[in-house]
Each structure stands twice: as structure tokens, then as C-alpha cells.
């Protein structure tokens, strides 16, 4: 792929705007809370778009297109089943506790609700995970640009890291959020023309459904039996594992996304953030997954396009997006498409960095290293942490080039740590009897259960390091079931230990637990329908059902 001067012009203008936004936002930053939590002052349309953009990293965009080519429209379950219901739940039911508790982070909520050790456990694992995911996505981008454009790995990693560092260092969370909104529009406007052109070249949706096997264009029809669909999953594993445990665990407890909603300027705006975000989230499959399906259809018809092959022989689905761009975009749009890829990478990385510096500064530094310092000191620590966080991510990216297996192993461990989280939050928010000891040991037991499930089952040669009790048809099915066992164990152990330990006095549960929190009632506070969270959630549900019926 060769770039023309106009492509470089577009890319450099984008960098100039991103840095410019950081420079302008800098004037608004005078306290640590401005820098780390945006001072709870961001309008709702901005927090909503940032809410999904922070999750829309380059790996997500490329990976979803690859899955579209590999699994077909079933991939949309990661959005329709695996994200939207959880986003509705966090907006309608959980945000009153996050926002109302005045906690500045998710680990801090755990401290207020439970105790110090539960917070420390969550803060430490979260901080390490954000650094590694930021480094791994940087690694992925470096490899991609090396492959597609022939840029050196070091140059693209350092250039993009430097730009993310400058704008997050200057403007903190506000700057990251503002840029995420710009990145969101760029991703949509940069990839939507590709989706439209590739689909129409493949004969439209109609043409693709006749040309491809039925299973590629139906999201539900072949889900009853795991042997009939390419994902190798069956309906219970999908609905309970992905649709409930994994998606609620991510969208309802991961500080990376919750932080965006908590930056909103009112309780009502915080609740509406994930609900408004659900609308573009439902539509995203058409921008990122459908091009992958079109790529598969095109490679099966004689138009001169084929998916590139891996060294090992099979098709390299990860290159579906970039090869489509090369085949459909001339200079100009090509530059814009690559800028959109760069943007998706930067929004994912900035999201991790801003979540990391908040958790480190407030939950680790202020709590355990140096409490009761003047606020200016924490602002300074927040900025230094940003710098250190970016440097450590770069280190992780290089570690990944050397020891690829370590990265796979770490991602596996993170999966074990995350799987039980939603159980802890569910019990903590809705059952006042839950205790700190219960939460802490429940989390550890859930993680252990996840590891044991992995050790006792085998899928595609993975797992089974203790014994083989069961074989799954795919690692995806295995992951869903690991999550189900981890969550159930966490629920049982947390409940049992809570009943055996002394509960927190009711006076300390105000604004933290259902029944002791003033939940704003829509009909009293908001006059217009589109400002009412429950009304918005119902509209989302209707659209969601319609989409699933159309693509049944």
C-alpha cells in the first residue's frame, strides 16, 4: 500500500487537531479532580460517544472485521447480546450507586461499600491490566503498520505513544474524552464508505446471503447446536456466558468505561450516558462487521479480490479490513481510512492511560503511599503517572514482540480475574447483607474457579493442565463456560461468607446499596421523554429486538 502526499496531509492534520484539543483543554485543568475525573462537568452527548469510543480500539475494529469474515453476522452478538443489555443495566440500575456515592473510581466504590482489601485487590489488578492492554494494542498497531505500510515498528509505536502522551498529559481525562468523540466520528465516517462499497460490490445483503453459506448471514438460526455454527457455541453458553457474565462484567464494572459516565455533569446525565451510547453501539456492526462478511463474499466470487493467506496456509482474517481498504480507497480516502485506524488505536490507548492514572493516583498513591497531601501534589502525581503509564505501555509492547506466549498467558489470567467481578458488584449493590470479607474471598474463589475450569477442560488444544473432564468445540465456548462457573462460584462464596461475618452498619450504606440510596424517579425529575432513562432504555430494547428479528 503506497501513500500519496494528500494521505500524509490528512494524517498530519489529524495529529495537529488532536494536540490542539489537548492544548485548549489544558486551560480548564487546575485541580487533580479536573485532571483525573473531568470535575464532573462534561455534557451528556460527549460522555456517551466517549463511552463507546474508549472501547473501540484498533484491535476491536480489525478484530471485529476479521470475525465478520470468519463467523459471519453471528459476530454481531458481541454487540447486540454482549454489550447493549449490560449498557442498559448499568445506566438504569447501577449508575445511581456509582455516581451517587461520590466515589472517584470503581475501586473507591468498593472501598466505600466493602473494605480496604477488596479495593486494593481490584485497584492493583485493574492498574496492571490497563497497562498491559494498552501495550498489547500498541504492539498490534506497530505490527499492522509495518505489514501494510512498511513503517518501522519502533517509529509507529513511538509516534502514536508520544501523541497520546502529549494530549493526555496536557488535558487529562477531559482531553482524552474530547478526542475520543473526534475519533468516534472519524472511525464511523472513515469506515462507513468502505462498508457500503464492499457490500454493494458483493451484490448487497441479498447477494451476500445467496452467495455465502446460510450460517454467515443468520445470527440466531444456527445457534441451537454448537456443531452447526462456526463459533462452536450453543445458546445457553452464548446467552449466559457472553450475554450475561462477560458483558455485564465488562460494561458494568470496568472503570475504563464507567469513568466516562462518571465524568458527566449530573446524575441524570451519568445514567443516560450508557443508554444514549447504546444507539450507536447497536449500529456499529454495520460499520465494522459487515465489511468482513463482504470480504468473504468477494473472495468467493471472481472479482479479483481474495483474503490473504497466512504462512501456515489458512486465510489471514486479520488482514480483511486493510486489504479491503487497499482495494476500494484511492489516495485521499485511503489516508482518511488509515487515520481512522490510527484514531481507533489512540482512543483505546488514551482510555487505558486515563483510567490507569486515576486508579493509581487516588486508589494506590493517595490511599497507601502518601495520604493528606495538598491537591496540587496529586495533580502533579497524576501527570507523572500519565508519563510513567505511557512509558510502561511502550515497554509492554516491546515485551510482546519478544515473548508472545507471555502475552497470551497474561490475557488468560486477566480473563480469570475479570470473570467473577459482576457477581461482587451485583450482591454489593442490591443486597445490604453482603460484607467485605464475603466480597474479597468471593472474588478470589471466582478467579480460582475460572482457573480450575480452564485446567479441567480442553478446547482447540488449550487448557486441560489438570485433567480433561470435558472438551469444548471452540475456545470461545470454553471462555463463556469459564465465565459462567467463575460467576456462580463468586455468588455462592460471597453469599455464604457474608452470612457468616458481621454486616456493615446500615448507617454506612447510604448511597451505596439499593434501599438506602435516593434513586431519582424519572417522572418527578425529568419532564421531557428523551431525558428519562427508563424511557430511553425501552426504546433501545425495541430497536434491539427489531435488529435481531431482521437478521435472525
Amino acid at each position, binding site marked *: 500500500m503506497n501513500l500519496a502526499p494528500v494521505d500524509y496531509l490528512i494524517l498530519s*492534520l489529524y495529529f495537529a487537531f488532536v494536540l490542539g*484539543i489537548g492544548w485548549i483543554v489544558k486551560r480548564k485543568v487546575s485541580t487533580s479532580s479536573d485532571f483525573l475525573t473531568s470535575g464532573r462537568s462534561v455534557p451528556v452527548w460527549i460522555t456517551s460517544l466517549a463511552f463507546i469510543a474508549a472501547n473501540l480500539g484498533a484491535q476491536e475494529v480489525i478484530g471485529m472485521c476479521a470475525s465478520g469474515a470468519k463467523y459471519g453476522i453471528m459476530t454481531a452478538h458481541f454487540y447486540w447480546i454482549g454489550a447493549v443489555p449490560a449498557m442498559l443495566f448499568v445506566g438504569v440500575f447501577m449508575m445511581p450507586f456509582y455516581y451517587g456515592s461520590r466515589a472517584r473510581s470503581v475501586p473507591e466504590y468498593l472501598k466505600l461499600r466493602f473494605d480496604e482489601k477488596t479495593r486494593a485487590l481490584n485497584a492493583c489488578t485493574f492498574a496492571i491490566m490497563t497497562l498491559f492492554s494498552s501495550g498489547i494494542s500498541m504492539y498490534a498497531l506497530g505490527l499492522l503498520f509495518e505489514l501494510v505500510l512498511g513503517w518501522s515498528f519502533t517509529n509507529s509505536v513511538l509516534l502514536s505513544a508520544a501523541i497520546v502522551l502529549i494530549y493526555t498529559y496536557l488535558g487529562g481525562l477531559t482531553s482524552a474524552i474530547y478526542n475520543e468523540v473526534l475519533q468516534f466520528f472519524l472511525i464511523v*465516517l472513515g469506515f462507513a464508505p468502505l462498508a457500503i462499497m464492499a457490500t454493494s*460490490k458483493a451484490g448487497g445483503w441479498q447477494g451476500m446471503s445467496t452467495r455465502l453459506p446460510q450460517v454467515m448471514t443468520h445470527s440466531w438460526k444456527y445457534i441451537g447446536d454448537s456443531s452447526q455454527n462456526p463459533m462452536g457455541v450453543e445458546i445457553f453458553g452464548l446467552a449466559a456466558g457472553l450475554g450475561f457474565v462477560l458483558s455485564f462484567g465488562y460494561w458494568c464494572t470496568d472503570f475504563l468505561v464507567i469513568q466516562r459516565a462518571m465524568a458527566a455533569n449530573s446524575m441524570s446525565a451519568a445514567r443516560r450516558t450508557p443508554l444514549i451510547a447504546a444507539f450507536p453501539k447497536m449500529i456499529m456492526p454495520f460499520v465494522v462487521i459487515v465489511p468482513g462478511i463482504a470480504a468473504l463474499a468477494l473472495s468467493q466470487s471472481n472479482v*479479483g479480490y481474495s483474503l490473504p493467506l497466512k504462512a501456515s496456509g489458512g486465510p489471514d482474517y486479520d488482514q480483511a479490513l486493510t486489504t479491503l481498504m487497499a*482495494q476500494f*480507497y*484511492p489516495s*485521499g480516502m485511503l489516508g*482518511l481510512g488509515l487515520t481512522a485506524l490510527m484514531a481507533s488505536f489512540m482512543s483505546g490507548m488514551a482510555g487505558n492511560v486515563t483510567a490507569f492514572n486515576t486508579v493509581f493516583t487516588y486508589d494506590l498513591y493517595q490511599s497507601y503511599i502518601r495520604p493528606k497531601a495538598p491537591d496540587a501534589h496529586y495533580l502533579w502525581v497524576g501527570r507523572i503517572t500519565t508519563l510513567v503509564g505511557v512509558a510502561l505501555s511502550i515497554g509492554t509492547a516491546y515485551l510482546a514482540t519478544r515473548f508472545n506466549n507471555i502475552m497470551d498467558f497474561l490475557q488468560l489470567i486477566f480473563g480469570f480475574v475479570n470473570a467473577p467481578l459482576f457477581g461482587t458488584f451485583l450482591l454489593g449493590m442490591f443486597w445490604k447483607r453482603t460484607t467485605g470479607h464475603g466480597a474479597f474471598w468471593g472474588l478470589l474463589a471466582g478467579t480460582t474457579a475460572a482457573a480450575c475450569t480452564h485446567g479441567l477442560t480442553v478446547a482447540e488444544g488449550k487448557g486441560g493442565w489438570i485433567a480433561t473432564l470435558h472438551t469444548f468445540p471452540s475456545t470461545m465456548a470454553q471462555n463463556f463456560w469459564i465465565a459462567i462457573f467463575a460467576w456462580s462460584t463468586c455468588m455462592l462464596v460471597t453469599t455464604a461468607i457474608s452470612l457468616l461475618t458481621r454486616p456493615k452498619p446500615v448507617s454506612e450504606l447510604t448511597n451505596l446499596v439499593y434501599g438506602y440510596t435516593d434513586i431519582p424517579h424519572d417522572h418527578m425529575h425529568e419532564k421531557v421523554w428523551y431525558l428519562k432513562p427508563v424511557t430511553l432504555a425501552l426504546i433501545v430494547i425495541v430497536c434491539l429486538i427489531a435488529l435481531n428479528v431482521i437478521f435472525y
Partner: protein
Amino acid sequence: MGDLRTSIGLFFSLMGVILLITGIIQPGARAALTQVNINLYSGASMLVFGSIMLWLSRRSS
């Protein structure tokens, strides 16, 4: 550029103009698999989107 809508509006108007000019002076520039002058159409839509954003930010200030 104080308002985010102004920044986004400026950015996409600029992108729109660049793509429109590219589409007009190089109407024959096509990628391998398509006959569409995508620079022209995308440029026009981005200019419209950018202008709407600029109009929204002017209206509120």
C-alpha cells in the same frame, strides 16, 4: 475552538474540502475494485457534517 463542536466541525469541514478537491482534480483516481469517485462523495458528506457541527456550535453560543 473552545466548544468541542467547533473543533469537530472545523476538522471535518477541512477534511471534506481536501477530499472534494482531490476528487475534482483527480477524477480518474480509482482503487482496483470500484468505479466510484469516493473522494468526491465522502468529501461532500464530510463537508456537510462539518458544517452542521459548526452551525450547532454557533447557535448555542
